[in-house]
């Protein structure tokens, strides 16, 4: 039966020459262009919007204001503990020194004192630079031993008056800052991306041996615990 059908489809008068004649070739090209354009738009424009959810920080923190009041720069709040571990985002205990009472009249400040300080609740800060759990990153090795400054990886967040929107990857659950804002993964400045390639690039450039302190051997387990 199929043979008969095929025969009828390829009967004289219905061949390729007729396709061209009735404009089917143009339609094919047109369809290709439509498909190409649509998927490019989806991939470059729609997809990034769908991939990330937009979240606001619980309190809109003003880095610039605090940096002006403190005398040890970033380390006034983001300090190293005695054991060398890095404190990261400040805990409430650090804020209470100044913020036991409301300072000024900013609504965020009032909310911070009333909802968090007075109730003794920690602020659930969203951490832009939090690496996946499988990554072991030591601040002390980079800042103290390597002499790097904060800006190299974190950019000029310290000079900002408002916190940027936190974009959370709906699949992995991590911040957009790791991949970078450019969806193609291109970067201009060293703080634009925080992927493994960026670690490797700097380590290679600086000639840093990526060996374990304990075993003096290189390997995945130096950074991936």
């Amino acid at each position, binding site marked *: 039966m199929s043979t008969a059908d095929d025969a009828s489809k390829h009967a004289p008068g219905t061949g390729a020459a007729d396709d061209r004649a*009735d*404009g*089917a070739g*143009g*339609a*094919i*090209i*047109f*369809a*290709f*262009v*439509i*498909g*190409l*354009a*649509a*998927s*490019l738009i*989806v*991939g*470059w424009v729609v*997809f*990034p919007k769908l*991939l990330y959810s937009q979240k606001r920080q619980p309190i809109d923190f003003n880095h610039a204001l605090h940096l002006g009041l403190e005398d040890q720069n970033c380390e006034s709040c983001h300090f190293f*503990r005695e*054991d060398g*571990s890095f*404190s*990261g985002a400040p*805990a409430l205990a650090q804020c209470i020194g100044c913020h036991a009472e409301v300072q000024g009249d900013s609504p965020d400040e009032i909310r911070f004192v009333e909802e968090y300080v007075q109730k003794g609740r920690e602020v659930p800060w969203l951490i832009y630079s939090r690496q*996946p*759990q*499988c990554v072991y990153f030591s601040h002390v090795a980079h800042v103290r031993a390597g002499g790097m400054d904060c800006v190299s990886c974190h950019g000029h967040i310290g000079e900002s008056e408002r916190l940027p929107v936190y974009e959370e*990857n709906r*699949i*992995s*659950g*991590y911040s957009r800052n790791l*991949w970078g804002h450019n*969806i*193609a*993964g291109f970067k201009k400045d060293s703080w634009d991306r925080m992927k493994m390639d960026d670690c490797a690039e700097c380590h290679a450039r600086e000639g840093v041996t990526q060996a374990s302190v304990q075993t003096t051997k290189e390997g995945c387990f130096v950074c991936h615990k």
Partner: protein
Amino acid sequence: MKIDRRCFLSLGVGAAAGTVLSPLPWKITDDLSIWSQMWPWTPWPAQGENTFTNSVSTLCTDGCGITVRKVGGRAVKIEGMAGYPGNEGGICNLCAAGLQLHYGPTRVREPMMRVGSRGEGQWRTVSWEQALGEVSRQLAGARKAGTPEAVGAIVDQPYGSVPALFRRFLTAFGSPNFMYTPTMADAYAAVLRLTHGTDSLVGFDLEHADYILSFGSGIIDGWGSPVRMFRAHSQWKTDGATVKQVEPRLSNTAAQSSQWIPVNPGSEGALALGLAHIIIKESLYDYDFVNNYASGFEQFRDLVLAQFSPGNVSRLTGVDQSTIVSVAREFARAHRPLAICGRGQGRTTGELGYFLAVHALNALMGTINRPGGVWALPVPDYIQWPEPPLDDVARGGMAKERLDGAGSAFPVARSLPHRLAAAIREQKPYGLQVLMVSGANPLYTLPGQTDLQQTLGQVPFIVSFATHMDETAAYADLVLPAPSHLERYEDVASTAGYPRPLIGLARPVVPREGDTRHPGDVLIQLAAALGGSLQEAFPWPDYDTCLQETLADRWEAMLADGYWANDRFQPDNWDAAFATASGRFEFFPDAVKDGALFQPLEPEGDAAQFPLVLIPYDTARISNGPVASPPFLIKTVADYVLKGKEMFVEINPESADALGLREGSAARLTTPRGSATVRVHLSHGIMPGLVGAPRGLGHTAYDDYLAGKGVNVNALVGAISDPASGLDAAWGIRASLAKA
């Protein structure tokens, strides 16, 4: 323009090309890989500042000194405490896995009253006021009826302030029935009472011995204080010490020893006397000790020379005569020989004759209270409370005989809970109305479970002070939730052979979860509720104050260091060590009588019906006390011991051939006490005719993670009261194994 199938294909090709040229596939691949490497449902420890708290874990036999790492209020890791005596920074696997128990799903968080029949698992939560009201009503009822002795308590340890509070409560109440779970420490205490005439704890100066003859002790299988034993064992290897292991099964200890001497189960004591025979016959013993500080040697010598010749001993033990002779000579000629006993982990008490025989071997070599030898330590005496005041009812009750016969029928024993079931069943000398259980889990650990459960069914009121819903709590009428080992203060007196007095301090490491109360607090509150002389006996406002006052000037040091130890302790010299009638070491105490005590104990059961012999064995990978093995431990168990939920028993291929069993065969294991379906693992490391089964599996309570794994071998073995000490002397039971 005609749109046909090819247009759609073209659209698809275009879309595919566009997609490839967009970041979509590459970005999704990257995100998916991150997602799949870190499943969002996998728990990760909280990030934050690490803080460390020193404490003592009360889960294992002797208490491990621990350092708990915390992030915020949550404990995330338990490690050994550096500098803790014996452990020196090490930790046993059960204490290391303690977080799984602390944060486990079957923690009891509020008082629960039984609804429905016993053990059915139907509960209703009640307030503490209701719970304590019910207990005081039950207790007051017993006093009103003039039968305060009908109230009993079972705890896990004999020493420490919590057991002491239970004992005090019962005494002031009027009941002599304070019981704890006896271990090899009790068998040794009985031996020291008979041969030294003192109330002592046994200690072993293992680190200074150079020839260790172990009569079944699982040196690296959890005997004594497990971490200290591992360290000592490594030290011996470094120093070139000799370790000879006498036992019927190739345990880890036997495999790591200089020589494994397979012996018929139950005949270890006979082998010790066989060695004594050679040592005496060849005059290899310590003349100074035997002639000047010992008594009864002549009787002992005559008995040993007459009955324990190498030929006889070889027949009893299955060890050939030349081995007996050579080991005896090596032992006697070693610089610092030490013989130790207590089978497996020493959680079972064993025959008094076996302990006496091994102790006599040490006495012959004069190693008692000497470097590298066996030491008699004073029993912990830091609890110095005035005697509780007794009213008439209490005096009447305290004059009664104990239900378990300790102190009366068996004068050297202090606690014989395995005899409780018979006393309850026969109501002799009287019945039990109220049973309090704290820290112990008799419905798992005591032999002959089925029997025991039926018997305990006759006790009208059982109250369990429990951290977890263990087997005993599950069978109780009222469960009073206790804070976990990481949530409370408690003193832990070391009793497992550390050769210096040592008290550890467990302390709250994390905030308490749930509505729990410390058993010590509950007793103080119950005493207050009952009033009168009971209230007078408990003058403390709460347990923490009681503990602080009890430890007195040790308290501050214990808070700072986590323990108190008498580092300068030296055992008494021979001229001051013995308080027997003769003032000397007694080789042949009256309890030995005609020497029948030294004959190997026959296992329970008819040899014709049960041709094999079941011997439970201990492994350091499985917790076999009152606490069930958390998943971290179970994961370390080989799949020829436990596979899924099925337990394997070990048998010799020779026995397996005769029974038509092969590796992995399902089989029905039957003993006079019960039966269970098991699988078979063939091993040349067990003597023919024996069936080895791991102890510590087969929990029925707790939760899905802890319960239903294997068989509780305690349920298959019955107790046999030792004729002299009354302690459970059973080392196994006759059994049959048939293809299932």
